[in-house]
């Protein structure tokens, strides 16, 4: 169990604020930090890691005090037994993939061979980071963060620079690693899909504090609805005596909607509209790679 109870002065675009956060994270939980930029998500992650020092408060992890401003305790980052994945990967440029992992090795570390196998890195063992793709870099960064068998895995927007498909693959891999290594994990993310797919709990940051926390269903409950709604744009209009046919563009696809002439009088081509369907059971179909509607 992790208990964070800290505050720190932060400089934001709206001037200095006192950021204070109270959070409890259970063992083996996967929690996401969500909220606008500058709301303190990454700062909280860094305070937990020991990279940023809070002004006041305490951080207690499994009964062990990591930080306490009153007792003047501040366990250095080196001794906190965490794995941290940086947004820019932070791979050491002068070391190969294998050397990056070997550098991380300490007394409790798992076998480099095994972790390379798990993360499918064997092909790149002797490659330098500059010659890796974004997804491969992220895999190495993950593997390196796990070499020392940390109890806590901290991920700072790890997938934000990757394309959608690679993201999906790596999301699955992170979930797998989280379960396989019995980790307590924290991910900073802007992506609601990531929150629903990966995490048990979400903390929403804003106004210098944690506004809400709970399961994703609970926190985003008002955004979830069985009603189907999309935003579209009217591109064409055809009116007859009985009804009008509107052509509405939603994303890449065009849909024709029949409305009565009276209602159609409120709209013109170019308007943005919400297309909603009541009593509606959506059908899901698998989308083939590169397929368009």
């Amino acid at each position, binding site marked *: 169990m992790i208990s964070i109870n800290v505050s720190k002065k932060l400089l934001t675009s709206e001037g200095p604020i006192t950021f204070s956060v109270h959070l409890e994270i259970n063992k083996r939980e996967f929690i996401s930090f969500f909220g606008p930029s500058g709301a303190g998500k990454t700062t909280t992650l860094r305070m937990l890691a020991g990279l940023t020092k809070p002004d006041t408060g305490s951080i207690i992890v499994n009964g062990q005090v990591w930080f306490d401003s009153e007792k003047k305790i501040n366990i250095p980052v*080196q001794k906190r037994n965490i794995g941290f994945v940086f947004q820019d990967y932070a791979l050491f440029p*002068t070391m190969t993939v294998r050397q990056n992992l070997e*550098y991380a090795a300490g007394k409790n570390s798992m076998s480099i061979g095994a972790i390379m196998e798990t993360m499918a890195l064997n092909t790149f063992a002797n490659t330098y980071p500059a010659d890796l793709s974004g997804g491969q870099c992220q895999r190495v960064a993950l593997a390196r963060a796990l070499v020392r068998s940390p109890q806590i895995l901290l991920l700072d927007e790890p997938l934000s620079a990757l394309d959608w498909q690679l993201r999906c693959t790596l999301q699955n891999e992170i979930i797998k690693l989280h379960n396989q290594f019995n980790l307590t994990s924290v991910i900073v993310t802007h992506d609601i899909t990531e929150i629903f797919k990966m995490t048990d709990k979400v903390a929403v940051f804003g106004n210098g504090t944690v506004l809400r926390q709970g399961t994703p269903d609970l926190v985003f409950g008002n955004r979830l609805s069985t009603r189907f709604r999309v935003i579209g744009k009217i591109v064409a209009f055809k009116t007859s005596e009985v009804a009008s046919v509107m052509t509405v563009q939603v994303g890449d696809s065009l849909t024709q909607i029949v409305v009565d002439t009276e209602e159609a009088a409120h709209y013109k081509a170019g308007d943005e509209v919400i297309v909603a369907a009541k009593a509606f059971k959506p059908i899901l179909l698998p989308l083939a790679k590169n397929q368009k509607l």
Partner: protein
Amino acid sequence: MIDITPVILSFRLALLCTIILTIIGVPISYWLTSSQSLLKYFFRSAVLLPLILPPSVLGFYFLLLWSPLSPVGQMLDKVFHIRLVFSFEGLVIASVIAGLPFMINPLMAGFESLSLSLKEASNTLGKSDFETLIRVLLPSIRPSLLIGIIMTFVHTFGEFGLVLMLGGKIPGKTLTSSIALYDHVEALEFSQAHIYAAVITFSAFLSLVLLFILNKKTRSGR
């Protein structure tokens, strides 16, 4: 032919200074880039001062400071029994100070170009700041280190004003190749002057070629 002693002396002086500056330059420049202290601006200016100050001015101050008539010179004489004026040791110390910017500048530029997350990543992997500096940061700025080493060497090898002020042209001790060149020109011995000038020009050019070759090697090595 010419006397080769001044050339060897210049080489010894340049080599010693470069070694000393490499050893002290790395921690100094790392501190100057990573420290939050306001003092760093003072030290930054102090380190860069020799770059904009004429070497003769620097030599003049060292001469006054270390002279047996000054309190500092007297103390050095009485306590340590050393006299830095007109001695090779004095030249080494003065050249190290004069050479500081040539080592510190490229190193600082190198450290500043590195993402902070490299150091932080190494820290999260349980490594101390010192181990991080030696194993992660320094190898990552190898080209900058190389530039610092070669620039310091070439600059010290050909230094004139400082050596003239402080050295006193003692053969084998403070008579370096650029001083020898000057003396021969003054005595209108142009054939000897030509040889010294050629040696200095050639070694400077060779150093630059070496710099580019090594730089290319470190780059293709990664």
